[in-house]
């Protein structure tokens, strides 16, 4: 169903915007859209710039790379929960969106998101958003589970999986105990809930690869997962899994593309970001590989009606239950980490 984009069409659209060929250095997760070869080649053909990628494996590593390499990167993917911290640390610069064609089609609430617009200026162009819920192997369930309680179902003892991430574990436990993820009062309830979860866990996963392999081999039958990744597991790897936005609510996240403070190719970086939020890029990315939901309403609308994102994230009632992850102070993050380590160590 993938429609090959005519390179010529793309070239025309961007010819105007190129100011001298530059080498754009992009810092992102590996295999997360910006480094799709066909997308990079289309952009390079049309603008003459060249794109080089560097990767990170956790938000902290991304921040460390920005701190220790001023001027080394031109575009960086930052989860909105970290944008404010990066801006305050002077790691990223405000973005003047003049000349970026696709900015007007961005969903208003995301374009004005307070995290992305730290200290009153746009620091992160909303790119894609998604949800962390859970996915299950449909061969193992007669009727589809809809609540987080499935993880505590004694029948599934030793056959469920969670991500090995302290913040996410605490936030899911908050949802399961009826609390808001950005404002957790009753930590004792969270601790008890997680304590009860421990014997249920087959293992903890920390990468898409882990998740796909554990699910494919039946190590676990239901596990927390990101919506974009679930889409990839279905489309790209053909695993019989269904994604669920839990009744109790789900952890939403909004990824923005920012320009590091020391970048010397701001115009070229803006052109690349504009291409990344272009509906034509998004539709092909979602079609061929599977992508999270786009922040560009035009792009979201351009999806086929069978598209995963339209079905799962399209219905308003599901969107209602999603709470976008806010920034978490370092102190709290360390507290959650220590709790999670104690639970894992069985203390």
């Amino acid at each position: 169903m993938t429609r090959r984009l005519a390179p010529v069409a793309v070239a025309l659209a961007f010819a105007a915007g190129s100011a001298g060929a530059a080498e754009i250095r992009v810092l992102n997760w590996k295999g997360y859209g910006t480094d799709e070869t066909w997308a990079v080649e289309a952009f390079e053909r049309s603008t003459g710039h060249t794109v080089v990628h560097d990767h990170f494996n956790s938000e902290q590593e991304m921040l460390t790379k920005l701190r220790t390499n001023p001027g080394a990167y031109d575009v960086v993917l930052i989860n909105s929960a970290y944008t404010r911290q990066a801006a305050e640390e002077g790691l990223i610069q405000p973005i003047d969106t003049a000349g970026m064609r696709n900015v007007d089609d961005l969903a208003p609430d995301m374009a004005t998101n307070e995290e992305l617009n730290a200290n009153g200026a746009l620091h992160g162009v909303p790119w894609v958003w998604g949800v962390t819920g859970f996915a299950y192997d449909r061969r193992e369930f007669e009727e589809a589970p809809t609540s987080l309680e499935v993880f505590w179902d004694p029948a599934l003892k030793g056959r469920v999986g969670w991500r090995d991430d302290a913040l996410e574990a605490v936030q899911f436990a908050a949802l399961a105990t009826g609390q808001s993820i950005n404002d957790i009062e009753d930590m004792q309830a969270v601790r008890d809930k997680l304590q009860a979860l421990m014997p249920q866990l087959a293992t903890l996963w920390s990468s898409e690869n882990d998740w796909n392999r554990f699910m494919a081999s039946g190590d676990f039958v239901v596990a927390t997962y990101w919506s974009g990744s679930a889409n990839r597991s279905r489309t790209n790897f053909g695993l019989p899994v269904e994604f669920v936005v839990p009744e109790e609510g789900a952890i939403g996240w909004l990824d923005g593309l920012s320009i590091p403070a020391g970048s010397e190719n701001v115009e070229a970086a803006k052109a690349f970001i504009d291409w990344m939020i272009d509906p034509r890029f998004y539709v092909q990315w979602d079609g061929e590989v599977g992508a999270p939901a786009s922040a560009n309403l035009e792009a979201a609308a351009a999806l086929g009606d069978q598209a995963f994102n339209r079905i799962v994230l399209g219905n308003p009632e599901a969107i209602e239950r999603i709470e976008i992850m806010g920034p978490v102070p370092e102190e709290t993050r360390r507290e959650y980490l220590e709790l999670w380590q104690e639970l894992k160590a069985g203390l």
Partner: protein
Amino acid sequence: MRPPPSLRAREARGTAALLAPAYLWLTAAVFVPLAVMLGLSFLTETPFGGRDWAVTLGQYEDALGKPLYRELLRRSLLLAGEVTLWCVVIGWPAAFVLAKVIGPRRRGALFLLTILPFWSNGLVRVFSWAILLRGAGVIDWAVEGLTPLEVEGSLLFTREAVVIGLVHAYLPYVVLTGYLSISAIGDDLLEAARSLGASRWLVFLRVVAPLSLPGVAAGAALVFVPVAGAFMEPRILGGREGTFLGTVIEDQFTAVFNWPFGAALSFVLLAAVLAVLAVSAPAVRAAR
């Protein structure tokens, strides 16, 4: 009346010239950076991005005080001890066979074959173990196929899986250092012992073991030291059982931005490891 530039002084200068390049390189690339990290471990915050920081012993108070980290240190040292024990028990006789039983023609090739696994990528190796140890994995398939045994549940995500993964990764160290020291024991020594009526086992115990002990001890140290700080095998093969001090230290750098605490934990680990080596060294010397 000392002779002019005495030989001994010239000899000392020669020795220093040989030592200098290696130790200067280590100083610049390891010792100074680690000193910086040691300094960092006495701060409240990582002095980046305008954070305010102060000197404190708090990091060490937590690292040594909190039960979580003390328990994890204990588990890490126990894990390192067990893995080292297995490596020595399996590797030492193998080194003896490699040095004294295999004929010279094939010994060179076998010697290099034991080094080869080092060159395969560590991560891919660990994932291969994950495949092997998983329930309905290759080992189960083989065991159930070849023997009447019924393998219940999978070895994966257990402490045993971590031990197997680590023994596999570090066994060659003991085999190689053992080989290097055993092959230096003259055959005439072994023949002399045999001629005095010692059984093969007694020869190994009374002649080969004491003489090759320093080599094997060096190999054991090369296993014990890094395993105490391992984080890859525990995380991938250990599942819930895979939480050790190494993984917690990694978290301080990847999950949170708490370099001072991560540094403090690793220097506590380093001190504990060196203490164990210092205690075991005389024991090793006494055993000779």
